[in-house]
């Protein structure tokens, strides 16, 4: 049994404006196991991104606590909707950005980053600029940039939503296989239930604002292969889909 690496206890966050205060997240508690792929789904504005911002340390919670069960200082990788590769840097320089900021550009780390670029098919593009790459390749480069700092937990904030549908399928497949290979613990946000169910080991469903946990589903699919398209063909897939869809309680008003 894998061990717990992160405990979130009663996390709440309130945003203040001159006119009002808005409770974005309320009493969010969950334990994350090592190597898990947790996907958070919920209606827009339910505070999904707020949770990731708090976990990444960029935002302070109003109350609650986060307990990391690690012996070494925690390292977190945060991936956003757009790849945000810097146009003035080559792909390699972009990938080294995190290491540079953390003052860890040792020859070994640079070598490792280069090897990762090679492994994931970007070796040839190392010295090119982002605009010379396709959307899918850029997203892969952004992932390698995140992996280069060797994070214990990866936070993905709708990482595929800027891509068109076909690229999105290919890229999510791609990214999941990379993450699985690197045995990373991942917390991801998405709108796309297909994506959530086929990628996740657990799906967390949030309610409308203020975001509270409605339910947590363990996903177990009896599909033959590991590929996401095959997983979508598993008989249980539609069950999960319908249940989560109902819990999301989406109305068009």
């Amino acid at each position, binding site marked *: 049994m894998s061990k717990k690496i992160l405990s979130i206890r009663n996390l709440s966050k309130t945003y203040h404006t001159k006119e009002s205060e808005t409770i974005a997240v309320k009493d969010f508690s969950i334990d994350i196991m090592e190597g898990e792929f947790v996907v958070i789904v919920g209606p827009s504005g339910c505070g999904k991104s707020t949770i990731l911002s708090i976990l990444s340390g960029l935002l302070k919670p109003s109350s609650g606590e986060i307990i990391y069960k690690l012996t070494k200082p925690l390292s977190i990788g945060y991936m956003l909707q757009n790849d945000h590769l810097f146009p003035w840097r080559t792909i390699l320089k972009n990938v080294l950005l995190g290491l540079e900021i953390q003052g860890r550009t040792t020859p070994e780390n640079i070598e490792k980053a280069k090897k990762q670029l090679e492994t994931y098919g970007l070796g040839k593009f190392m010295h090119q600029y982002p605009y010379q790459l396709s959307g899918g390749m850029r997203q892969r480069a952004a992932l390698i940039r995140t992996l280069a*700092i060797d994070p214990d937990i990866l936070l993905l904030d709708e990482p595929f939503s800027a891509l068109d549908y076909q690229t999105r399928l290919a890229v999510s497949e791609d990214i999941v296989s990379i993450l699985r290979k690197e045995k990373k613990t991942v917390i991801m946000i998405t709108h796309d239930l297909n994506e959530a169910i086929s990628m996740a080991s657990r799906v967390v469903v949030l309610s409308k604002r203020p975001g509270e946990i409605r339910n947590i589903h363990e996903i177990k699919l009896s599909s033959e292969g590991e590929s996401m398209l095959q997983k979508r063909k598993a008989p249980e897939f539609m069950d999960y889909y319908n249940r989560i869809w109902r819990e999301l309680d989406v109305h068009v008003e």
Partner: protein
Amino acid sequence: MYMWNKPKQLTEHEQYLMDIRKENIKVHLTRIIILIAFFILWEIAARLMWIDSFITSQPTAVYNTLISLTQSGELFKHLFITIGETVLGFILGTIIGTLIAIMLWWSPFISRVLDPFIVMLNSLPKVALGPIIIVWAGAGITAVIVMALLISTIITIINVYGGFNEVDSEKVILVQSFGATKKQVLQKVILPASYPAIINALKINVGLSWVGVIMGEFLVSKAGLGYLIVYGSQVFKLNLVMTSILVLAIASVVMYIGVAFLEKKLIK
């Protein structure tokens, strides 16, 4: 042996390129014709006494003045002083303006405090400060440069600071998620992303520095093209005035082209 060469059939793309080239040639040619026609008309009008060449001068007189000014070395002395002042003005203006913009970005508090003052300084016609500058900096090159600086610095602050604020906030979040300090955010994101804004400020400052320098020279100096223009008009040597204006026009265009070229080199 005689061979038939059928006229080569142009492909559609070649035809397209050819049309563009033809159009460009037409535009350039028309420009040149307008310029030449202007000078010819000016000369004819002066010779036939349609206009009084004492107050309008005429191209041949301008040419002669140009030659004598060049031979006596006067022209280059004044030209270099003016160019020197302008270059110093726009480089210093860009550097000082960018530094102040960095300070404003660094401290939102200072930025909020200074905002109304910057707005006021921007809308104030800087020439009104001329007399004060002369009193403080003395009637010389320093006063001219201060004038140019005053004009270009304010606009640089506004443009570059605006550029800083337009940097995608998610890029900042990205580097912060790696644990970047404020200085690193500035170095890794804000400055490189605002590079085009800074180059653009440089371009605007070339023009503004010319304004500042000529204005300054009108007010105080004893040398420079602005001085030649004012001096020429005071002693009714319109040939000198027109010559100086012509040289000024050419110098400012050359400098603008230089900066535009620099821009192309620096921004890929």
